[in-house]
């Protein structure tokens, strides 16, 4: 790697693990995604694709029109925030320094280690499984937005809709991407609950050097 961004950087006995842009976009994203999911579930309930509905208490908007208003207001926040994050990741080499290198072999090795109970958590460095998960969820979010656009504008953006199997196909893609995103969020929150010292750095940016961190 040539000259990656200064991460992790040290400050006394603390290490900087999350840059400010990542922290801000992370929490804005939490807010936007919670609104999108809760209102999206209400919209889904108006005409369920499958043989179930989401519990009304978990939904946002009160009725279909309200849910649509929330969904189509928060989408701007989601997309603008996402563009800031992606631009930062690409142009400030945050992605390169945090998510690369990544090969199937590295992911396999890490999974093997995890199965033997030897998960590596070095502060400020993602292991291969984490890298794969984060790249994966970014792709899922992009598919969510594109399928959302196809559902919103199936005539104006019909080429996009046709890629996903026309309007009804785009609905299905949107649903599956939502389910994958929700799965990621659940696993992500469980992981933070299991390793609570990873939580504060996403607010402050810094973490204390930890004696148990494996140094490679």
């Amino acid at each position: 790697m040539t000259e990656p961004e200064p991460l992790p950087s040290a400050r006394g006995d603390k290490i900087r693990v999350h840059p400010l842009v990542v922290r801000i976009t992370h929490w804005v994203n939490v807010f936007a995604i919670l609104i999108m999911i809760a209102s999206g579930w209400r919209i889904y309930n108006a005409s369920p694709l499958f043989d179930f509905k989401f519990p009304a208490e978990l939904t946002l908007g009160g009725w279909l029109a309200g849910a649509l208003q929330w969904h189509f207001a928060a989408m701007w926040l989601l997309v603008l925030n996402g563009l800031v994050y992606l631009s930062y990741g690409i142009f400030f080499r945050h992605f390169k320094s945090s998510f690369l290198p990544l090969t199937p072999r590295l992911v396999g090795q890490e999974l093997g280690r995890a199965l033997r109970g030897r998960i590596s958590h070095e502060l400020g460095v993602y292991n291969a499984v984490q890298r794969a998960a984060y790249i994966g969820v970014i792709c899922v979010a992009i598919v969510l937005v594109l399928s959302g656009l196809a559902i919103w504008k199936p005539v104006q953006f019909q080429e996009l809709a046709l890629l996903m199997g026309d309007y009804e196909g785009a609905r299905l893609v949107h649903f599956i991407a939502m389910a994958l995103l929700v799965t990621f969020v659940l696993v992500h929150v469980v992981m933070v609950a299991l390793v609570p010292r990873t939580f504060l750095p996403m607010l402050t940016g810094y973490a204390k050097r930890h004696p148990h961190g494996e140094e490679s």
Partner: protein
Amino acid sequence: MTDKPKKPDRALIAPSAEIRRIERRLFLRQGLSLGAITLLAGCDITNAETVQRVLWRMSRWNDRVQAAIFDANKLALEYPESAITKPFPFNGFYPEAEAPRVDGATYKLELGGLIRDKAPWTLERLNAMPQTSQITRHICVEGWSAIGKWSGVTFGTFLERVGADLSAKYVGFKCADDYYTSIDMPTALHPQTQMTLRFGDEVLPTAYGFPMKLRMPTKLGFKNPKHITAIFVTNDDPGGYWEDQGYNWFSGS
């Protein structure tokens, strides 16, 4: 048509830039706590006035974005006869049995507003106009969709024929079931926007809007008024039955 539901206070929807800035701050501050409280406690406090106002404002913003995205020459996909959904779902704000029964023999389509020739039209005269048909996808705001075949008069041709002011902003519709709605002029002039007189291969049935409905594959289902009794051209936003209750006005596809 006289007792329209109360329209949102439009004075509240177009305040100064300063108020807009303040509200943006309020939205961010209240939004954060709202999101947290709503999601943690599961309670519904989305009726807070400020939040409602911001959501309405965003909906108006989305109207403008959709008007900008709208391509007057972009045609909705047409499907083969074999793709037609049977039976085609009925949808309305009342049960199918309560659909209004309009007498085709005495029916008169009223014209108003910025139209040169306001003489009412009979069904016979509408049927004598050049007819076109389309097999397109009807998409409901609820999410479901169905493919149907509609035939009738291209709306743009009709508007030209009666001397409508094509530079006006809106075309409004009043219906026999007290439904009302309005559309933007570019959509009114879209080649697939149709004054529908026939559904499938039969005269438009009562459930689907006899004697005449407006079919627009470029807008969501609820924007396609049925049982139309009056059409008017105007520059003042006429709103709509669902739109005034919170559904997005443009609702383009």
